[in-house]
């Protein structure tokens, strides 16, 4: 393969790893400023990581391998996602493996690992969080699949780089009914998958209302750092995927280093803008009653299904 391709992957993973905590910091800072608070600063999540890594790891009595292995597994799946998802270049050595179904499975694997860890602690909160998380995941994963399927029909492949490259060539695909429906569906699914308002409140201290946080209550020290880092990576990758699928402009499709560097800059910019827009929107939202969450997710699944239907019947070219 080519050196530029490898460079692109290294740059992409480096940017995601360094940028994930910064993205969370940026989102918190945006929210704080909009609420009239000073905020802790963009660097705070990195400071938290440093603080947590200095603490001793604590394993609750009676927990087993599921609890032990969930944090590394979550981070590992997120890192593999960071390699596979075409954020800055579609011409990388791993493009053949960046299949949609692999991406969704890796997401589900991370979710499952954390849910099992929540159950493994044997506490009421862990089990409660796990059951809520799985109920949400069961609705979210098919939505992500469906929404990206809608985009894969015109491209004729479930390979993400092919879909992205196709969309970059023909931007008209994105403004088609199928494209717009898929954007809406995927946006809701990303909110739910990353535990944001209105599905889950990442800032709450109320243990009985938590979804994602309830599963991770027993983690401390370096394990907690890994869990939080994994969640930040996932949010970054998901927002990046959203940006690549629906605003693929600037993504490098050839073997030019300059194009890759420009794409990196643009990707960082796109994800930062998306993150700030999400944080700004969250200021105006409130958390839904838990039993209304399935309604919201079922709605987004319906949108995804409509997107697939529309793209099948209305999609003119490249259907085969």
């Amino acid at each position, binding site marked *: 393969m080519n050196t530029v391709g490898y460079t692109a992957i290294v740059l992409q993973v480096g940017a995601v790893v360094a940028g994930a905590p910064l993205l969370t910091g940026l989102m918190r800072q945006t*929210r704080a400023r*909009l*609420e*009239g*608070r000073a905020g802790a600063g963009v660097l705070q999540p990195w400071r938290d990581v440093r603080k947590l890594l200095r603490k001793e790891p604590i394993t609750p009595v009676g927990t087993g391998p599921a609890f032990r292995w969930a944090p590394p597994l979550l981070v590992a799946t997120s890192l593999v996602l960071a390699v596979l998802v075409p954020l800055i270049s579609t011409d990388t050595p791993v493009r053949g493996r960046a299949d949609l179904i692999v991406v969704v499975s890796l997401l589900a694997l991370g979710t499952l690992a954390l849910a099992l860890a929540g159950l493994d602690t044997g506490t*009421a*909160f862990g*089990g*409660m969080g796990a059951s809520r998380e799985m109920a949400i995941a069961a609705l979210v994963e098919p939505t992500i699949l469906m929404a990206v399927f809608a985009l894969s029909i015109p491209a004729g492949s479930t390979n993400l780089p092919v879909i992205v490259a196709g969309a970059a060539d023909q931007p008209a695909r994105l403004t088609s009914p199928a494209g717009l429906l898929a954007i809406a569906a995927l946006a809701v699914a990303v909110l739910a998958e990353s535990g944001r*308002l*209105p599905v889950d*409140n990442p*800032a*709450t*201290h*109320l*243990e*009985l*209302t938590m979804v994602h946080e309830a599963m991770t*209550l027993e983690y401390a020290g370096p394990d907690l750092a890994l869990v939080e880092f994994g969640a930040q990576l996932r949010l970054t990758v998901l927002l990046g995927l959203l940006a690549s699928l629906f605003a693929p402009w600037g993504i490098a499709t050839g073997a030019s280093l300059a194009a890759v560097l420009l794409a990196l800059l643009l990707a960082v910019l796109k994800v930062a803008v998306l993150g700030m827009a999400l944080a700004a929107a969250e*200021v*105006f*939202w*409130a*958390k*839904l*009653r*838990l*039993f*209304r969450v399935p309604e919201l997710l079922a709605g987004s699944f319906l949108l995804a299904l409509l997107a697939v239907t529309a793209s099948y019947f209305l999609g003119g070219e490249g259907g085969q």
Partner: protein
Amino acid sequence: MRTAHEVNTGELPKRAEGLLRDGHRLALVAAHHDVDAVRLVHLFVSGPPDTRIELHVRLDPARPEVPSLAHLSFPAGRFEREMHDLHGIVPLDHPQPRRLVRHFHWPKGWYPMHPDAGDPPAFGEQEGPYPFLEVTGDGVYEIPVGPVHAGIIEPGHFRFSVVGETILKLKARLWFVHKGIEKLFQGRSVAAGLPLAERISGDTAVGHALAYCLAVEEATGTAVPEQAQCARALLLELERLHNHVADLGMLCNDVGHGILNAHAQRVREQLLRLNDTVTGHRLLRGGVVPGGSALRTLPHPAQLDAIGDDIRDIVKLALGHSTIHDRFTGTAILRTEAARDIGCLGYVARASGLAQDARIAHPLSPHGRPANVPVHTSGDVLARFLVRAEEIDASLALIRELRDSVATGPVLGPAPAAGSGPRSGVGLVEGWRGTIATRVELAADGTLARVKPVDPSFFNWPALPVALNDTIVPDFPLTNKSFNLSYAGNDL
């Protein structure tokens, strides 16, 4: 005003039943260890017109037993359990003869309020099993929460029996913060009792201080100047304001809408700074003193108007938000009959259709009565939100009205003539949470022989599990905040 009747133990249930039937409510039960007898005082109140009737019962100190009133009044049953735990007085035929206040590490047979109790003993072996009622059935599981919580809140243990996400039964076990306040009052001078009264529940400094001062003034026969009466009514409304604003914000925060909380807390901070200029303390301590009031400055009407506008904006935005409205509506309904049976007070009662307000029933003076008492009947979180929001408007109007009849600096009545013999007094005040009742007895030398404060939380806590039946677990924090009961005022 206040009448006292000596009754014997046999007559007590009959007399109590008659009083309850005539529309009185049991406001307070206090036990006293006199030299020759154990004396119980049951205070029944009703209003308007302001009526206070006391039933005094004398018991044999060797065998302090009294027929239970629990079958007549639910609060009476709670007072009796409290008396049993603190004084060792046995309520006969009590339907729930279990401990209430008693910390489970206190040695058996040690009663902290008994004159021979001495210093608190070391924590002993846990006293007997005290199991939670277990709910069984397909898919029923338990969630234990607390007493240490994830947020900075007071300690309380909650045991949820849940199927899926729906609460079948909630048991709240509180009583982790016994401070021995009633014992600490004993033997203090009247002046030294005031700081203690202000600290019974930190957010109700004015309410408890005022109830204490009223009781002391009745006992000593002190006349309070009208200006001081108005100043006290004004302070009471200022306290209502800062607490209600904070609650409105936190209710929004609990449904994930942080921005309204940020603004409500901004308004609260303005109010706390205003409090600081008015009394020299952000939580209004020092404004109410025995015999009168001591204000430094008066709130400026323009500032109050600006605060009122801000709060109305916050309320309008909250109610206009469809998700918030949806989360509040129909959540944790406390029905009117349940609220009446439990004996709820304050905004909890008023949100469930009971127009309970001591400012109307037991007014301090001709001033300080709200023009209207907001009442809602739906009994859900929305009703408790709306009652608070409307009370803020009523309080602001009242402050504006009272402002003109108040003087700054110490306003004190003539010092009372040194009385002799034991004397008693009762104070009834509509604190921001509800009606506070304090009963004081003075010893012959003018020191405090016995002070019994009752916070409205003592009456309202049992209503929380009732309201939560069939509510879902993630709505518990919201419901809890909508009640916002005091742990410290509940467990003296």
